[in-house]
């Protein structure tokens, strides 16, 4: 029987509530057990060292009701304080972390996204949700809420440009479901509770490391080894017992921590199922959500931009290797997200559809969209005055070009003659209003740039439909950081063999690369960023990231990126190869 979304929602809610109660119980019982161990420190010592009289007479002391109550109150206060600090401006901090921004009113896609969020909020009965955009070409989305400020639904740019309207709506529905069922708040409560165990473990670990470092250090330079003196009256055997006791406590904490982590992941997976069900309740379109999940999960190997601690916030886990997202033991225990295949299966079941139909539909959609896009471009070109030929200083005609491409010609003056494609009358370019507007905008946007490598003039060109600056001499490219990912997404360019080989080599290299960060590479060259002339920070040579170890120079101030000749193409080629395999 097909499982209805209301049924799933109910069932999952029950399971989640039970798991939540278990975690709260585990938290308090953990405190209780540790307190019990500590109060009976001497009692357990008796079994370790029978000879000492100090331990002999001690009996086992159970914790009384009042003591237990005190411990529970202490644990509660601790959790509340921790919760307060965890959630303090949580949404704002996350927004900062993701570099999320409000939708740009000039961008029709982002405006559509804003509309979609408002639509879904109507479907929830009018809850306030703030739409935001994450400038990344990954395909992902997340819901941020801390119970205090207005919840946020943020999607990546990549997702907006890759999915169609109803698919985006399904994704937004999924995220709104997380907000409706207050998943973010509950996660914050749980993580602030178990933070104390985790941090005490870390603290102990660093202490142990510190002691061992300290002692080995002393031995090496010839000082007598410092003995650990516990109050002076305890002999060495008792000293060993103290360490033994600490190890026991650590193990108890560790077990609690592991249990809690497994439970949290379990809850997180159940929440994803529930959010899918609620998304269907809100948008009544299980097929669109299945399509969206399918597209997203097949495209996760794009730019990995390390935000692993936040992965339970995302619609699909950004870091889990593909292996785990397929069914299997790993998928069952150690992930924050259930296998996408399973989620898709449930959704397809709801819409009485199958995997084959889904694939078919997706293929049709892409073909149709491409056709539509071409059609629109044609019409747009016509509306904008069509394609034009332009008269070069050598009195030859080049073209045809779109008006906007003309800004790339540095020899262009207001008197340069142009003629429309298919017509013979020539007019000076200054009479074309579109061009002049564009030119003025350009001047406003950019100060004059010179090539950071060789100092010659940079020309604005349109590269894969994006305006970027190219050096007329060395062919290097100066690009804004956020456009790089947009360019990677484009498919218009084809690559020759040389580029392909270089990309292949880099892909292999990136697999063998150690876990290096984005640290600067040692280099004798240091380019100047023209945009930040007043700022002393120069452009640094570094690799793009460890999945794309292409050498670039990046201004640490404004994020302008300089690619030497071919480097961008190699990166595009790598990107394409990765997504094909």
């Amino acid at each position, binding site marked *: 029987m097909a499982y209805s979304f209301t049924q799933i929602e109910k069932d999952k809610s029950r399971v989640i509530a039970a798991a939540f109660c278990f975690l709260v119980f585990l938290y308090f019982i953990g405190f209780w057990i540790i307190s019990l161990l500590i109060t009976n420190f001497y009692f357990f010592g008796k079994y370790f060292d029978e000879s000492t009289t100090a331990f002999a007479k001690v009996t086992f002391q159970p914790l009384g009701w009042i003591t237990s109550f005190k411990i529970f109150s202490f644990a509660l206060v601790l959790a509340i304080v921790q919760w307060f600090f965890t959630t303090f401006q949580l949404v704002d901090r996350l927004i900062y972390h993701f570099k999320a921004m409000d939708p740009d009113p000039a961008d029709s896609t982002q405006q559509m996204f804003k509309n979609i969020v*408002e639509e879904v909020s*109507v*479907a929830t*009965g009018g809850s306030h949700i703030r739409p935001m955009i994450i400038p990344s070409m990954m395909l992902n989305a997340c819901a941020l809420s801390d119970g205090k400020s207005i919840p946020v639904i943020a999607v990546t740019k990549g997702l907006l440009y890759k999915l169609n*309207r109803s698919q985006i709506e399904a994704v937004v529905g999924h995220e709104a479901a997380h907000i409706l069922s207050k998943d973010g708040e509950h996660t914050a409560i749980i993580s602030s509770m178990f933070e104390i165990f985790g941090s005490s473990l870390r603290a102990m670990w660093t202490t142990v490391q510190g002691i061992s470092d300290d002692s080995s250090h002393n031995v090496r330079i010839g000082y007598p080894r410092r003995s650990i003196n516990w109050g002076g009256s305890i002999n060495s055997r008792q000293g060993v017992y103290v360490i033994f006791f600490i190890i026991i406590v650590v193990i108890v904490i560790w077990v609690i921590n592991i249990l809690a982590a497994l439970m949290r992941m379990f809850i997180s997976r159940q929440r994803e199922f529930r959010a899918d069900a609620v998304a269907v*309740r809100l948008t009544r379109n299980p097929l669109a959500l299945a399509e969206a999940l399918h597209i997203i999960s097949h495209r996760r190997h794009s730019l990995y931009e390390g935000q692993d601690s936040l992965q339970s916030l995302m619609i699909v886990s950004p870091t889990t290797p593909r292996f785990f997202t397929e069914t299997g033991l790993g998928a069952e225990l150690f992930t924050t997200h259930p296998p996408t295949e399973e989620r898709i299966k449930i959704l397809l079941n709801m819409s009485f559809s199958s995997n084959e139909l889904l694939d078919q539909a997706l293929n049709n959609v892409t073909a149709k969209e491409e056709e539509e896009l071409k059609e629109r471009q044609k*019409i747009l070109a*016509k509306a904008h005055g069509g394609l034009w030929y332009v008269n070069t200083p050598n009195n030859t005609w080049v073209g045809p070009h779109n008006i906007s491409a003309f800004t790339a010609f540095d020899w262009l003056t207001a008197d340069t003659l142009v003629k429309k494609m298919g017509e013979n009358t020539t007019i000076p370019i200054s009479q074309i209003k579109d061009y002049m507007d564009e030119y003025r905008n350009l001047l406003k946007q950019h100060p004059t740039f010179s090539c950071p490598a060789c100092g010659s003039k940079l020309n604005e060109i349109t590269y894969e439909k994006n305006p970027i600056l190219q050096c007329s001499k060395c062919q290097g490219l100066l690009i804004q950081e956020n456009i790089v990912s947009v360019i990677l997404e484009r498919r218009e360019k084809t690559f020759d063999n040389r580029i392909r080989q270089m990309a292949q080599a880099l892909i292999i290299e990136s697999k063998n690369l150690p876990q290096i960060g984005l640290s600067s590479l040692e280099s004798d060259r240091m380019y100047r960023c023209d945009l930040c002339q007043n700022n002393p920070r120069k452009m640094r040579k570094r690799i793009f990231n460890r999945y794309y170890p292409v050498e670039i120079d990046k201004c640490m101030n404004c994020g302008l990126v300089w690619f030497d000749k071919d480097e961008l193409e190699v990166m595009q080629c790598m990107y394409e190869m990765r997504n094909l395999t």
Partner: protein
Amino acid sequence: MTLTFVVLLVLVAIVFFWGVGVYNTLVSLRENIKNGWSQIDVQLHRRHDLIPNLVETAKGYLKHESTTLENVIKARQMAVDASSIPDKIQAENFLTSTLRSLFAVSENYPELKASQQMIKVHEEITSTENRIAFARQYYNDEVNRLNTSIQLFPNNFIANTFRFEKAAFFHIDNPDVAKVPQVKF
């Protein structure tokens, strides 16, 4: 004696708190329904406000389709003027059909379709249509929840005592939707 008393007290307390719980749920459902109704109204308003904009944008391109445009304007005026709920529903349905024919006509005018202004207005209209649908869906869902829960045992005692009544669904009187599909063998 005391034991019986305590047990009785506990039972009464349980029943009391259960009653309070049910009562509060029913009240919040009723409020949700009111909220849902006003949501529908808000979205319909939004639609009415958008239409002059749409007509203004389309006018320049659709010089030969003045009747279609006039129909849209007329339908909008009717929808704005409608006061009773059946009138409203009828007027909105008429407006929807005129909008549909306007968009169908505009398919023949590529310049109109490509115009940035039109793309914007079209997106707004699409969004508004979705909002109306979602608002209606929310309203109907909440009505469904209220109607179910006041009939369920033992909630019906509370519902009857405090006179919670069934709410009416928001139906679209669209013959295409209402018609039972005919199956021929």
